[in-house]
């Protein structure tokens, strides 16, 4: 009996030596069609960000593209994307780098690092781009062709989203959490010829999104801050005269947190709601009041579906609206597609915490 027992154990030990988990998969070749990229943030410090591509024509979706092509993770908390003739750029916030990949094959090409907390890219031309930063007070200047840093525009505040108006870039100052004493309730104007800060304007706390409409006015969505007293508001600003054309105040407790504009620059799509629920609202740039009825209700957007946790909205060239549903943040979220009238078309699974969306 003792002998048998020992033999069984010995066998177990030998078997245990034989193999170890984890298999190395082969790199896959891709040829990306025309469609929508979805960047999934993943979980903070888990480095499980991922890249999803959706082909609206064929209604097909593919997840984990970056890993499949490059056999390495995209990084920790991927935040935004940009694309130009040089390639595609992916800003990975907590890994503090920007990856450049081929926009067709998604093969890794180069990396820009030495950043503090990179957020968004504004491509100026073939050799120049701005990169906002949540912890450094200004904009990094880099060459997207060589992926080398070429300078820094000191603005005195940390920087977030950008929009280009003629020879100026307007940037929002969204956070002063890591730079106490700086502003988190302004927008700033940077001259792209001189790379100098030329002006700034006050809005309310946490200007989150910024878009340009058909009248060449900019719209700034301020979520109002995360601690009371909050002042959530939407501003329509004439960037030339630096005047506030219109101001809309949201109700107390509202938390507007994402905004997109259609191709014609006529309609704004705003995610707004209260604690735990954000619905999608559609608003004409000519409107003089905030919309009161949701365009897409997160609680009942489709038949026999559960309530959704929307985080980002995007509008395609042909007017289709895409919304990310992050669910409970610890599993793959969904992307929902609606037509321009708000009718549900389809939904598909993306990665963990789907966030930024970009059409190629």
């Amino acid at each position: 009996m003792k002998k048998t027992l020992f033999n069984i154990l010995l066998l177990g030990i030998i078997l245990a030596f034989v193999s170890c988990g984890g298999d190395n998969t082969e790199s896959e070749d891709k040829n990306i069609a025309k469609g929508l990229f979805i960047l999934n943030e993943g979980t903070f410090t888990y480095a499980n960000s991922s890249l999803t591509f959706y082909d609206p024509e064929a209604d097909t979706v593919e997840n984990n593209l970056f890993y499949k092509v490059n056999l390495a993770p995209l990084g920790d908390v991927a935040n935004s994307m940009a694309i130009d003739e040089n390639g595609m750029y992916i800003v990975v916030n907590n890994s503090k780098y920007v990856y450049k990949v081929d926009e067709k094959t998604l093969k890794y090409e180069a990396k820009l690092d030495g950043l503090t907390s990179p957020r968004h890219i504004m491509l100026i031309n073939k050799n120049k781009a701005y990169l906002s930063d949540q912890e450094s007070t200004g904009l990094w200047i880099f060459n997207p062709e060589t992926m080398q840093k070429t300078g820094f525009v000191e603005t005195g505040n940390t920087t977030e989203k950008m929009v280009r108006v003629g020879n100026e870039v307007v940037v929002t100052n969204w956070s002063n959490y890591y730079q106490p004493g700086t502003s988190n309730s302004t927008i700033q104007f940077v001259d792209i010829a001189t790379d100098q800060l030329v002006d700034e304007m006050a809005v309310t706390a946490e200007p989150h999104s910024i878009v340009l409409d058909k009248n060449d006015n900019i719209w700034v969505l301020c979520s109002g801050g995360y601690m009371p007293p909050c002042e959530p508001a939407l501003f329509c600003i004439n960037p030339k005269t630096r005047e506030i054309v219109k101001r809309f105040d949201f109700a107390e407790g509202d938390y507007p947190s994402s905004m997109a504009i259609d191709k014609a620059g006529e309609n704004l799509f705003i995610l707004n709601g209260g604690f735990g629920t954000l619905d999608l609202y559609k608003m004409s740039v000519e409107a003089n009041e905030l919309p009161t009825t949701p365009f897409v209700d997160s609680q009942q957007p489709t038949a026999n579906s559960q309530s959704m946790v929307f985080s980002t909205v995007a509008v395609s060239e042909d007017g289709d609206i895409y919304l990310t549903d992050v669910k409970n943040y610890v599993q793959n979220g969904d992307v929902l597609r609606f037509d321009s009238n708000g009718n549900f078309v389809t939904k598909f699974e993306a990665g963990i915490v789907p966030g930024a969306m970009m059409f190629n």
Partner: protein
Amino acid sequence: MILSIFFVLSVTASAQNDTIILETIEISASQIYKKAEQKSMERKIDTAIMKRLKTVSLSQLLIQHSPVFIKTNGPGGTASASFRGTTASHTLVLWNGFQLNSPTLGEVDFSMIPVFFTDEVSLQWGSKTSANSGGLGGVVNIANSQKFNEGLILDVRQTYGSFNTWGLYLTVGYSAKNFIARVKAYRNSSDNDFTYTNIATIPHQEMKQKNADFVDYGFMPEIKVQFKNSLLTFVSWNQFSHRNYPQIMPNVFNNTKEYADNDFSRNFLSYKYYWNTGRVEVKSAYFHERQDYFLESYTSNGNPVTQINSLNKSDVFRQIIDLQQDLYKSWKLYAKIQLDNEKVTSSNYSQLPTPTSSPKRNILSFYAAVDGKIYDDLDLRLTLRNDIVDDKSVGFFPTATLTYRAPFVKGLTFNAGYSHNYRNPTLNDLYWNPGGNENLKGENGKTVDLDINYLYENINFNLDFRTGLYYSKVKDWIQWVPTNYRYWMPKNVSEVIARGAEFHVKAIYRYALWNFSISGNYVYSHTTDESEYAQQYDSDGKQLIYIPKHHANAFAEAKWKTWNINYIFEFTGKRNTSMNDSDFFAYQLPYYTLHNITLGKQLGKFRLEFRINNLTDNDYQTVLWRAMPGRSYEVYLEFKL
């Protein structure tokens, strides 16, 4: 310097007869078997193994020799436990009866407990955890015990290993007939700059771990005085550590600085009074703990940006009166009254709208238990506890345990238990800024379990086989859930069911001058959230994050005269790192195995060991993207009077 101390000591030592030591070990092993037979829902870690692993942390002892799963961030990184399919905050750690779980986080970092500072480690589960709140998964008991009348105590252990890892462990003292004075002191440090393959960079590359060095040191004076019918004990556990934390694999090129300083002083005074039919113990503890966690990055002009500088200080007083009294025949009564005062000062609470940046909590707990024989082979144990948290009763918590010793097979026992317990929200859950939720209720757990133990002993062969089955349901399980306000908030949303089985086997075989022993644990744990909240997101039925469904360990040792060789095997099954239930790398970590070997030789009062850890140089991750060392070596030298 460290080495020179050791050599001075070694020169003064004289050679000793080898065989005496072997005999001592054999005797202590059989004593354990006798004790094991009597205890239900409880297991003591073999003292022979404890002696071998004095220079490691409790996290390593548990992962290699117990059914408790440890999730570790690597050497010098935090290590948290999962007992019977629960999480770190459901594993209660008691030090001589006093809770060590921090009032802020609710957990214990097992890497911060040197086995060296303990004399006994035991595990309790099910109804055995009923004397305290919090141990919904189980209790890890660590205790100090030093026998009287053993004369001069002198023990020096020195380790040196790969990555410039040094350890020095010194015990000096005197054990008289009625008096013991003993001081333990240690220092352990490592550059921890091991080489690994970074599979998160493009291309993958061999690199050295950076910013992972650490130093831990501490001292523990103890005094024990025995009077005619009483015993007075004082122990003071003081420890300091500075640990740099490395970045996860994709982030290694960041110039981020991350470290933690942890200092604490834990003290207790106990007075025990005995009489013929019982005893009473009055004990009082004061713990002062300080944790500073720091994270910094650098801006465009090289200025540092402090991302996190969190300073937590806690002052905890715990008073216990513990009574044991024989009643009638085999029946005994136990009673305990405990008062805990917890106070925390934290930079994480400071921006509260209401100025309670130093929250306090008072917990008064009443506990009573009776046990005895109902029939010859059948024992019953009943317990009841009532806790009053800040003047509000949180309810009554009963347990019942039946022990049946099968008369038809000698050594076969069955234990069946039912227990009801709860866990208070942590002070972070209540007061964290932002998100802290002062309306949280405690978690409420009910468990049924069954243990089947078989013990066989003869002159040269011992076998101890244990099986445990459990099913527990925790309602109002606290989970931090996202809100639209960019911060998360803890809520009583989950209803977690943990069910599983544990198997433990230990066998010792003696033949002539040979002594073989093997032991092992296999644990199956299936833990899921079945709440409405989970159902809403299709997460119900899915294994919770970082709880392996399967894990196992095995230990085999052969001793011959003064030589010994042992082998330790660890198996950790795949673990979800998301609720996707997909085997894609970022959603689920693959299983891994580890093999460790030690060769030892006793030379009089000296003992020399050579250890190889991760013998097969396996690449693995315990926590997603945390680099782990490959093969490493260690030399161990001990002098014991």
